[in-house]
């Protein structure tokens, strides 16, 4: 592993961390698509900055790009505030137009410069180590490493300084406002940080990867935890993990690093999406199935309670009467037996004392809808957990 490889992985990991932090808040604030909009609409800012400085490495470029990002946010909000269209439509309108302006500006004026649209959108991490930063002639490392490193430092500093404010305004904007934090300041602060991170990172990894790195780790982490701090940590871990594994995937396939990092993020998300303990698809499906059985059980018990006649309580009759399929009624019957709610004598089903109790409590619950009545039942029975 050469030093260039280490540097690439280092840059990728730093970008992943720098993106994961604002990304978490964007996901929580339901503004994930804004990052997509920003990453596209910074193009005209970069182009204009390039015309002014004629130098692709100038910090003015990053500044102008960040300003364009903020302008995007303001424009989106203004259009939304007029009430003419919804927020998502506003986003969908603003950024393609800004992007078009950028593309046209490039096509008209900067044909022979190293500034083509592919590079902006896709980035190429593999070249990052060749762009060295020289301080008085001494090679101190790749330039993008320094750029993203300093952005990361600022982001982390801001995160620690304003963690409390961010947390409150994210989850309860009203409370934050009444406590005297201006939600607007925090909102635009977050937007500025996102813009700057996007701009700083896109040079190394491209606009699409920035969006992926912002949203995917945060969304994945959100499936696993509801604790903000833990979510931040998870998001960072996921980001770094996919950055490094993505690099090796790209190495192995000889393909784009940005693309393979995104693919790793996608795989990671897919796995968590399917298997997350509480919120994964499989868990949700399983729970839905269980709840269906539980409701069936309750229906079954109620039926037993309502009928004293023996013929109504015959095992075979139940099959026809409640209109369940064989397998289903068998499951329910077994579940009830296992919980000692019913006894079967000569194929006649009758409620036990425990079953009686349970059923009347359940009816009470359904009628009054009070949680306190079923508190103690939660332990020995999983119905009503919701």
């Amino acid at each position: 592993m050469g030093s260039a490889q280490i540097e690439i992985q280092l840059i990728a990991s730093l970008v992943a961390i720098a993106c994961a932090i604002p990304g978490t808040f964007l996901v929580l604030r339901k503004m994930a698509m804004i990052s997509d909009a920003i990453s596209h609409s910074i193009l005209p800012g970069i182009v204009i900055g390039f015309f002014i400085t004629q130098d692709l490495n100038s910090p003015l470029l990053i500044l102008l790009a960040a300003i364009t990002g903020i302008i995007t946010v303001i424009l989106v909000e203004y259009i939304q505030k007029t009430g003419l269209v919804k927020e998502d439509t506003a986003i969908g309108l603003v950024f393609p137009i800004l992007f078009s302006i950028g593309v046209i500006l490039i096509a008209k004026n900067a044909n022979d410069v190293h500034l083509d649209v592919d590079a902006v959108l896709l980035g190429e991490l593999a070249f990052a180590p060749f762009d060295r930063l020289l301080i008085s002639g001494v090679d101190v490392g790749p330039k993008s490493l320094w750029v993203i490193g300093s952005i990361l430092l600022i982001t982390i500093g801001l995160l620690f300084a304003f963690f409390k404010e961010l947390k409150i305004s994210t989850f309860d904007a009203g409370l934050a406002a009444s406590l005297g934090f201006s939600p607007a300041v925090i909102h635009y602060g977050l937007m500025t940080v996102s813009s700057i991170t996007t701009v700083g990172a896109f040079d190394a990894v491209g606009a699409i990867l920035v969006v992926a790195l912002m949203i995917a780790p945060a969304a994945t982490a959100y499936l696993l935890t509801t604790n903000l701090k833990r979510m931040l940590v998870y998001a960072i871990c996921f980001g770094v993990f996919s950055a490094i594994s993505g690099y090796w995937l790209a190495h192995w396939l000889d393909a784009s690093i940005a693309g393979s990092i995104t693919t790793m993020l996608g795989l990671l998300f897919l796995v968590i999406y399917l298997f997350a303990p509480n919120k994964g698809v499989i868990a949700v499906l399983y729970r839905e199935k269980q709840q269906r059985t539980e409701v069936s059980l309750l229906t079954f018990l109620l039926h037993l309670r309502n009928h004293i006649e023996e013929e109504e309580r015959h095992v075979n009759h139940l099959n026809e009467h409640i209109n369940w399929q064989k397998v289903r009624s068998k499951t329910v019957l077994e579940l009830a037996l296992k919980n000692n709610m019913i006894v079967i004598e000569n194929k006649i089903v009758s409620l036990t004392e425990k079953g009686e109790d349970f059923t009347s409590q359940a009816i009470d619950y359904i009628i009054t809808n009070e949680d306190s009545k079923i508190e103690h039942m939660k332990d020995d029975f999983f119905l009503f957990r919701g």
Partner: protein
Amino acid sequence: MLGSFAVLRKQSLLGDAISHAALPGIAIAFLITGAKDSNVLLLGALISGLIGTFWIRGIISKTHLKSDTALGLILSLFFGFGMLLLTFIQKQPNANQAGLDKYLFGQAATLVESDVWLMAIVTGICLIVLLLFWKEFKILLFDADYTKTLGFNTRFIDILITTFIVLAIVLGLQTVGVVLMSAMLLAPAAAARQWTNNLGIMVLLAATFGAFSGVFGTAISASQNNLSTGPVIVIVAGIFVLISFIFSPNRGLLFKQIRFIKNRRDLQLHKTLSFMYHIAKTHENISHPHAIKILNNFQGYTKGTLQKLVRKNYVNLNGSMWSLTEEGFKTASNLYNQQTENNG
């Protein structure tokens, strides 16, 4: 045209997500067939676009992630995967690979006749289906629950609309490219929305706007060198939206502002009149003249409003004195009644 449905269903950004999600489909189709047959590539794009859409649905309904997160997630992940495949293809020894990335930004000029025919046919099919299912689409759009109670298969209709939106996007990709497709889908519909509340008219208008921006954009881009078609079309469409936002008679910003100012003037006029009424009420003769000066420390009063009141025949002016006319007094007392009624 189909954009109208997307806008009204609050799924505007779906277009953006799908257009990005189509990329891996194109790449995989190319990997499998090894040829650059545009129909096969489009089929691949269609399939991966649909997978993306339904995954987005799945994320929204099965987890607590919100729609924006789901959209951004699918968009970036699919696109990244597509990029991976594209760069992978580039390393393959296959002469046909060049030009695949043209799908990224689109180039209307590279379209050949068969592509145009394909588009025309698909547009025709879209139109027919739209007309056939017009009622169902409309009802699903505005009241999904009601549709269900009426016994329509909402799932089927939903999938039908989504499929056609995806189809339209995938076709458009060739012309304007991934990034700008969402604007093509949204802009005409958003512009049309400002002019009408009627779905039929809105769809027609959107189609017209879309066609116009296409024609104008192509014309402008052809008239100059170095101007790619896609961005110009998008900007023309954007100008349409801007004009609609400002000038549309009912919802437009300009007329809203005018109405706002007019209302404020009316209110000031009423304030002045009711102030005068209170003074006049204290006198037996309602037309007893008063000095203009006493109005001076009152906010709603200006020379202009006084002139207006005179013109409406509510007030008589005599030198520096004013007096309420019979009519003015009646209006003012009614005004007062209305106000108390409203307050009560």
